[in-house]
């Protein structure tokens, strides 16, 4: 027996010595020297076609590979010249004329002209492509009709190539935030030659997005794509602003697990990660405050009712449930990361608009309202089914709410965990009572939040309908006077909060862990960090 112990020790010691003494080069140290950024990107991108994907991990990579007419200032998010070097607005805001750069090129050197944009918009609006973001282009005249198949002649749609480098877009009605809309990837141009080489214009899932095939017009080109392993992009020499781009290469790593991603960051495998497990937030805040970035994010986390189901069709019940939730506790102790308890649906200071509503925590009033609704001390109220989609954060939130309702109102809640796909499906089939939900703004304007609740809106999952609300929102969309719009939005929001088809809980913050060598990364409310401006400054 003793002999065996010695045998094993003798075997293992040299092995350990070898490892212990080997000096390890981390990604971060190599990256700093060579100008390579290592980025943790969450889940593996489904595709890199700007017109058929919707996820944030995809969007981060696509913004490095493509560029739209308009790009964003990395600090203020204000529209800046992109492919279009200037533009003019005419006809009371209905017609936008864009003057494209003559030195704008595709990554293979071929010139980028207005005709490319016509092709791209035709593609995203073509029904067979079934793009989920096509609705973003509905502001263009006749675009919605073309996308629904009502008209089949694309020349009727309000985009025109007036000359090779002049593009004209005609809208249905004036939209004050139109230019910021253009920074969304749905509006990015795609190369006709490459797409038609690998399939038809509106054919989904062709091979044009594979490395070696994909042609973009952005600051980087796609070099390598190993599924579940890494995506490598390198600097695009043919980019018109290549001089400003300082990084040589970016490597995106996909992760399925928050803990794994954070560990990779901590051990120097990544420069940047957008995933911070809740339990580690306070650790970083205390020990490494310079590394963790907590920024207000344009999103709201809320509970949504199916207002057609009893007893949630009773306004008093909904209000009682809302009053019994301690949002401050929830935000501070359960969710953490600087989340702000919600007072409205639209986050404060969205393009200068802040709602004038309030959401109380008042247990006495909640009890009173519940009794008024016919359920004194919670008696008679059927068991509440609170649906949520699997994630550790969601689970903690619903557990906390379940307990708050039990303690404050003496009612029983059963929390129903549904997998992501089933959760989404339940909304489609209206098979839920109350559910957790979140909405992230598509662009920096209150309408992206308040449009949701109009009657018949695609994403109006509460099945809620209010004529007055619709009327006000319609008015707001018909005007381009900022003050008037904000005024109207305020009115609409008051109705929304008073009728409570949803219970807003908190406003989002975006979290990121960034190594100090990373510069050119600026916090903003949309969490957009164009990689064009990012660079590494080693100490």
């Amino acid at each position, binding site marked *: 027996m003793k002999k065996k112990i010695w045998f094993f020790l003798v075997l293992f010691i040299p092995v350990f010595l070898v490892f212990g003494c080997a000096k390890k080069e981390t990604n971060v140290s190599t990256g700093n020297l060579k100008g390579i950024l290592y980025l943790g990107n969450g889940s593996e991108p489904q595709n890199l076609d700007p017109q058929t994907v919707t996820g944030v991990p995809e969007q981060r990579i696509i913004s490095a590979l493509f560029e739209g007419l308009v790009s964003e200032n990395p600090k203020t998010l204000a529209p800046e010249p992109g492919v279009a070097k200037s533009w003019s607005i005419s006809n009371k805001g209905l017609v936008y004329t864009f003057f494209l750069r003559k030195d704008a090129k595709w990554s293979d050197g071929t010139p980028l002209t207005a005709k490319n944009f016509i092709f791209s918009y035709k593609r995203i609006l073509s029904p067979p492509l079934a793009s989920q973001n096509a609705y973003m282009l509905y502001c263009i005249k006749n675009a919605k009709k073309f996308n629904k198949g009502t008209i089949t002649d694309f020349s009727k749609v309000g985009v025109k190539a007036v000359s090779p480098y002049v593009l004209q877009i005609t809208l249905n009605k004036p939209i004050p935030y139109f230019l910021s809309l253009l920074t969304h990837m749905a509006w990015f141009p795609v190369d006709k030659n490459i797409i038609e080489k690998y399939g038809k214009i509106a054919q989904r899932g062709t091979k044009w997005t594979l490395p070696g095939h994909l042609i973009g017009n952005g600051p980087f080109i796609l070099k390598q794509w190993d599924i579940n392993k890494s995506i490598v992009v390198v600097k695009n020499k043919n980019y018109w602003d290549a001089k400003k781009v300082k990084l040589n290469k970016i490597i995106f790593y996909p*992760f399925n697990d928050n803990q794994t991603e954070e560990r990779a960051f901590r051990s120097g495998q990544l420069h940047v990660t957008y995933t911070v497990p809740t339990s580690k937030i306070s650790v970083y805040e205390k020990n490494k405050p310079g590394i963790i970035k907590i920024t207000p994010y344009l999103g709201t986390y809320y509970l949504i009712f199916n207002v057609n189901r009893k007893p949630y069709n009773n306004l008093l019940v909904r209000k009682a449930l809302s009053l019994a939730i301690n949002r401050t506790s929830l935000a501070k102790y359960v969710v953490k990361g600087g989340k702000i308890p919600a007072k409205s649906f639209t986050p404060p200071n969205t393009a200068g608009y802040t709602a004038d509503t309030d959401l109380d925590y008042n247990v006495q009033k909640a009890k009173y309202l519940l009794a008024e609704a016919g359920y004194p001390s919670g008696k008679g109220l059927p068991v509440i089914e609170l649906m949520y989609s699997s994630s550790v954060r969601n689970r903690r939130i619903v557990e906390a709410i379940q307990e708050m309702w039990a303690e404050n109102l003496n009612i029983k809640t059963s929390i129903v965990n549904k997998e992501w*796909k089933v959760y989404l499906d339940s909304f489609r089939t209206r098979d839920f009572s109350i559910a957790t939900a979140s909405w992230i703004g598509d662009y920096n304007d209150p309408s992206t939040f308040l449009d949701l609740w109009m009657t018949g809106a695609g994403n109006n999952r509460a099945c809620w309908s209010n004529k007055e609300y619709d009327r006000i929102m319609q008015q707001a969309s018909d005007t381009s006077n900022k003050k008037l719009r904000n005024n109207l939005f305020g009115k609409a929001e008051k109705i929304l909060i008073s009728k409570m088809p949803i219970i807003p809980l908190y406003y989002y913050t975006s979290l990121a862990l960034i190594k100090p060598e990373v510069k050119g990364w600026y916090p903003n409310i949309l969490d957009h960090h164009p990689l064009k401006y990012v660079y590494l400054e080693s100490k």
Partner: protein
Amino acid sequence: MFFFILKRVVHVIPVLLIVATITFFLIRIAPGGPFSLDKNVTPEVLANLNRHYGLDKPIYIQYLEYMKSLLKGDLGPSFQYPNRTVNEMIGNAFPVSLELGSMAMALALIVGILFGIIASTKPNDLRDYFSMSFVMLGICIPAFVLGPILIWIFAIKLNWVNVSGWNTPTDYILPVITLGAMYAANIARLSRGGMLEVLSLDFIRTARAKGISEKWVIIRHSLKGGLLSVVSYIGPAVAGLITGSFVVEVIFQIPGLGRLFVLAAFNRDYTMIMGTVLFYALMIVILNLVVDVIQILIDPRRSFSE
């Protein structure tokens, strides 16, 4: 032997077909489809998506079409990653899982058999108790606990290896240990049991009486018989290992088949699910056959005419 193998191969085909059929219908019955999407899609978009993937056709036609392409060896495009085919993705992920799995199995065999033999030489003694307790850790600590603990000790605190990834040879160590632990425990148990049984047989008594040293008694005379049950365990175990362990792959960031598979189930990536299920079934069936053949070859009590 040839006819034995042939008979079994012939049996394999209907098994695979039935597995394919059951899976095909089972996954379509499950709620939540591949296109349940974050932003509500308009009915037109949904209809177009379904049309593109052939999901708008009646289910028996979908089934027939799938079977037809299956016979050609084409597993179709992935629903989740539309610009890749299932064949391609499995082709990329399988070698990784194969590497990880074989190393884990090798480790499990070495450690398991060693400890099992050590334990069996003095049953119910301290040596037995300690060896078995040590290997049992493999069955008593879940991989998703063992993995992070090993990472914490060796990668974070001691900084000897990377926390995750599958690039340099040192990356292999921790995942292989985590994955192999459970199998090592089972193999140890099996070999201990097998050795104990063989060592109690008469011919061993004879060998000892003849004066042969204990070492040779173990190595030359008992090993083959004692390890028989390990052989039959290895077959399905290898299939499980090779087709990837989801937990280990997620924790160590390994682009293997296990991860692909479980994520496909959650994403309702129908074609990928079918592809991985069939692949797994094929592996199991082949490995079972190999194991059976080996067993018959080693065990003098059995023959191919069974």
